[in-house]
């Protein structure tokens, strides 16, 4: 009678997150949270056409209300979850059997646990603010209602992604946000550049999706399940090679969605979309999905040192590449996009450090969501006032004309450079500390990245809000309406206060049931790092001030620049490499194949038919039309028959 005891032990030893309880009570609202924006989106998009004037006037309100409703549900669920014991904070809602074929059993399941709870709040919270902001920003766009429909679709898909209880359901949300991103980047479809950028984003993401899809197949082949719980339970039985393959494939997917090197090239182009989209999708939420994926799959990365190292390397490379690009760009949105890449690099780096870093990756993800959304919306507010000008060299001295935008932007600025007391200070410091604990060189590179961040953000601040006015003629900068500045204020407050999540170790305690947690051993006290990093940041600020603050900024970009700047301006030649390695050979391959298909494959078919045709036209020459030759043939035939008969008879 030992078996029952073993069983009991096994359940006790299993981590808490692996034993989710079925949804009951208020938690049945998990699916409703997704459904509300989805239905609203369908209403807003389907009600298209000239007969829907009323919908055009009120549609944005429906969209905002749907997002707000999800946020309210999210808050209610979060509070309920807070009230539970740490061991019970994992709720599973199984809606219906999605795909059941033989051993392949995928249910439409949602998993609501501390990790997804935080994401839900971030997505719906920031999402709602950006809905409100968009009411003002998109006011004059004739297709504003559809814009809100797409935004709602995004919210629904992103919630599906973070609430999924199964990798395939996650994939559903994963591609859903890809679709929403495609629709929103290309929202101004009449612009060729926007349409091309949208397609590029989707296709590059698809490359990453191959990784995710293969990872799911590998899970099914090796473990017979694709649910988080099932994979977490079974992962110990697979070989380390399989675990590494899984880790690398998931990383490929994460690279696509989170614009990490080598799949980074779409993010800068994605800035063609309306600015609220850049803020919501390409800064605060969707691009961090890769980090979510890695953190969510912590049980897979636990067993594979190699894949974790790959995550660290990818994060580190992107961190530096993004910062580099951010330094060189004059387009305010692209500078911010480079910064986003770089900051997600920090998160990836932290996620690659294992349990020591997961909590801080998520922490930085949240604070970044606040301050980057804040700054993107601020940039949008600037553009709104400057007739959609994006070139920072045509800004300057806007601080006095746009005091609210400037003030809120400054909060975001201080947060991102890690000014002591602001949210970024806490979150970035923790990551750099953890990096030092892992490997000194990684730590040094991450710390240097912080200095560069300070440089390019200061540059952006100076060129936009301070320095001399270099506006184009007939530019009339003005402060944006309250419907746009109100979200800015809220986000600015969040940028300042977001860091308090870490006080008392709350964030790591909260996430421990999901990700586990390890403290790291540091050679020197933590305050030394804080001081060191702050000094680096100060140096970065000072260099930027010396370069841009004390001298006049030219209103056109200087041509004679160093290789470093030129490379940064051209996105470190990422597009050039893609062009040379993939697109041009691919183009030639399709052309070559088209010729091969016409001449080779179809040629063979036509050769057969042509051969038959040629043979018959040769043979029909025998039909001369002369009766005499026909009769000669008849006589010849008769003769042959006669000879044959004789030969047989005589023999």
């Amino acid at each position: 009678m030992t078996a029952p005891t073993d069983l009991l032990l096994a359940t006790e030893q299993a981590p808490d997150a692996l034993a989710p309880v079925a949804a009951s009570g208020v938690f049945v609202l998990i699916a409703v949270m997704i459904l509300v924006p989805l239905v609203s989106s369908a209403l807003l998009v389907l009600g298209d056409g000239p007969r829907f004037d009323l919908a055009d006037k009120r549609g944005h309100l429906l969209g905002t209300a749907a997002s707000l409703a999800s946020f309210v549900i999210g808050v209610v669920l979060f509070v309920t979850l807070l009230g539970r014991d740490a061991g019970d904070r994992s709720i599973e809602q199984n809606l219906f059997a999605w795909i059941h074929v033989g051993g392949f059993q995928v249910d439409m399941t949602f998993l609501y646990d501390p990790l997804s709870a935080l994401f839900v709040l971030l997505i719906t919270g920031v999402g709602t603010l950006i809905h409100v902001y968009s009411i003002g920003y998109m006011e004059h766009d004739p297709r504003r209602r559809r814009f809100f429909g797409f935004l709602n679709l995004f919210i629904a898909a992103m919630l599906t992604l973070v609430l999924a209880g199964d990798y395939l359901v996650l994939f559903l949300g994963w591609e859903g946000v890809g679709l929403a991103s495609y629709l929103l980047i290309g929202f101004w479809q009449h612009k060729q550049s926007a349409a091309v950028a949208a397609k590029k984003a989707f296709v590059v993401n698809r490359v990453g999706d191959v990784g995710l899809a293969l990872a799911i197949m590998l899970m099914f082949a090796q473990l017979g399940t694709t649910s988080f719980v099932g994979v977490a339970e079974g992962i110990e039985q697979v070989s380390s090679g399989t675990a590494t393959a899984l880790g690398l494939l998931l990383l490929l997917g994460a690279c696509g969605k989170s614009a990490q090197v080598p799949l980074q090239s779409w993010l800068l182009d994605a800035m063609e979309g309306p600015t609220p989209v850049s803020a919501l999708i390409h800064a605060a939420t969707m691009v961090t999905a890769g980090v979510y994926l890695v953190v969510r799959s912590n049980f897979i990365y636990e067993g594979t040192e190699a894949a974790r190292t790959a995550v660290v390397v990818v994060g580190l490379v992107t961190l530096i590449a993004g910062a580099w690009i951010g330094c060189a760009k004059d387009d305010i949105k692209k500078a911010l996009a480079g910064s986003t890449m770089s900051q997600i690099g920090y998160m990836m780096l932290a996620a690659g450090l294992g349990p020591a870093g997961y909590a801080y990756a998520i922490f930085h993800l949240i604070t970044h969501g606040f301050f980057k959304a804040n700054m993107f919306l601020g940039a949008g507010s600037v553009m709104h006032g400057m007739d959609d000008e994006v070139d920072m060299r045509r800004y300057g001295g806007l601080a006095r004309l746009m005091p609210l935008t400037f003030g809120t932007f400054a909060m975001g600025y201080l947060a991102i450079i890690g000014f002591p007391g602001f949210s970024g200070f806490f979150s970035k410091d923790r990551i750099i500390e953890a990096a030092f604990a892992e490997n000194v060189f990684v730590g040094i590179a991450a710390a240097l990245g912080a200095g560069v961040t300070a440089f390019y953000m200061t540059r952006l601040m100076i060129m936009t809000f301070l320095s001399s006015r270099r506006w184009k003629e007939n530019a009339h900068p003005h402060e944006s309406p309250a419907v746009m500045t109100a979200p800015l204020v809220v986000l600015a407050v969040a940028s300042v206060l977001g860091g308090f999540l870490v006080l008392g170790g709350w964030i790591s305690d909260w996430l421990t049931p999901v990700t586990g947690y390890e403290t790291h051993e540091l050679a020197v006290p933590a305050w030394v790092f804080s001081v060191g990093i702050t000094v680096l940041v100060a140096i970065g600020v000072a260099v930027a001030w010396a370069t841009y603050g004390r001298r006049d900024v030219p209103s056109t970009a200087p041509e004679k620049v160093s290789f470093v700047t030129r490379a940064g301006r051209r996105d470190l030649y990422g597009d050039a490499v893609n062009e040379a390695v993939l697109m041009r050979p691919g183009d030639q391959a399709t052309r070559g194949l088209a010729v091969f298909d016409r001449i080779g494959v179809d040629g063979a078919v036509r050769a057969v038919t042509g051969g038959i045709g040629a043979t018959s036209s040769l043979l029909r020459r025998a039909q001369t039309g002369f009766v005499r030759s026909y009769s000669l043939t008849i006589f010849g035939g008769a003769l042959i028959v006669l000879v044959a008969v004789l030969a047989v008879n005589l023999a």
Partner: protein
Amino acid sequence: MRGSDVPWLTILGLAPIVGGVVLALLPRGRALLAKQVALGFSGLTLVLVLVVAAQFDLDGSGYQLTEQVDWIAAFGVHYALGMNGLGLTLVVMTAILTPVVILASWEDGDGGRWSSASFFAWMLVLEGLALGAFMATDVFLFYVLFEATLIPLYFLIGGYGGLGRQSAALKFLVYNLLGGLVMLAAVVGLYVVSSRAGSPSYLLSDLMDLEMGTWTERLLFIGFMVAFAIKAPLWPLHTWLPGAAKAATPGSSVLMVSVLDKIGTFGMLRFCLGLFPEASQWASPVVITLAVISIIYGALLAIGEDDIRRLIAYTSVSHFGFIILGIFAFTTQSTTGAALYMFNHGLSTAALFLVTGFLIARRGSASIADYGGVQKVAPVLAGILLLAGLSSLSLPGLSPFVSEFLVLAGTFTRSTVAAVFATLGIVLAALYILLMYQRTMTGPLREDNRHVTDLRGREIASLAPMVVLIIGLGLYPQPLLNVIQPTVDATLQHVGVTDPAPVSTEAEEGSR
């Protein structure tokens, strides 16, 4: 076998053919009446299909509602019909698509060589023959119907298509007849084998248990497979399809690619695997290789194609590659996925052909280079084109994703290499669809596209069923999977393969 007093399947198969005859007898010059009659008969067929589906027992794996009458007793030929899950799926698809096509092609038959009444008559006859092919449980009867379907389509392409329709129709006919000829030899061979074993019989149930020599079986398999591979079409036997799709009217293209070509993949699943299980296993590495080549090759050619209709034809080559890959990977998931793929591909390709057909009719050109910015003047058309395109690139949440993922996941357990290469196809799919959408719909509105109008009520009505099904079955595919799976289980059991077990359970069993 579950007998039934009413010969439902015969009634079902005859209904559209009777409709075709009625149309042919209608007085000339009553074009509108002819169209209404055609729509009525296709609707009646759909109702009959629903009646049949309601009687279908989901738990049964064998043939249901069977009918059997001797036809040519000397050769063991029967008129035998029966319905299983796979057949029901395709019958439902055909019955849904035909009224949709008739509604969408309302005016396409007007400018043809013959009257529009005969255009719709041929369509109904084609539907009836295809339904018969999906229901036939006698190999000879199937062969006759398989070949007979070529006739209506030959006239549909040759009589009502666009430029170069004559030669395209001829190429289609001769190419497929050639495949049929090879199959005929194999059908005769089956008779020989069957009569040697005792009394000759073409009944599927008799032939399935037939013992034959290894090489006899392989040769007969090749004979059937070549015909099906031309029809499906599998690389390198695909070159008739783009030309035929380019010349045919959109409605004919739908019937050709969505319905007629499915008889090929359907035949592989029912006859190749059913009659020649060992030979199917023997050939599977080659077939899988060709299928993967089809996937990549079709996608690459679609990327480089400028003619919208040829582009869709090449995407179908790629999709048929997935279906054939799934069938010959022999796992529950892949084969079920392949059967589901047949249904979903029918829907998504029909939507693509029809919506681009509306576009081409408005602009008068099928060249992508002639378009640009159409989204601005025809947003509904653009939206439906995008949705159809997204379903073609297997976006999760739309029905083709379920089938494609099942095929890939199932194949992965059998042949990882094939699955990895096939998965690359999803990147190429994104490229060919989005490039086409970008070049036609987005960007600044070109001056010569300004007169393009948005979809009208009839056109939206014809596309709506597909849109609803694509989204609905993407989120809830289980009803169809439940219909298909018993058939697939029985087939795979007959072939004698079992799914590879996940490694983790193997390890567990090993440790016990």
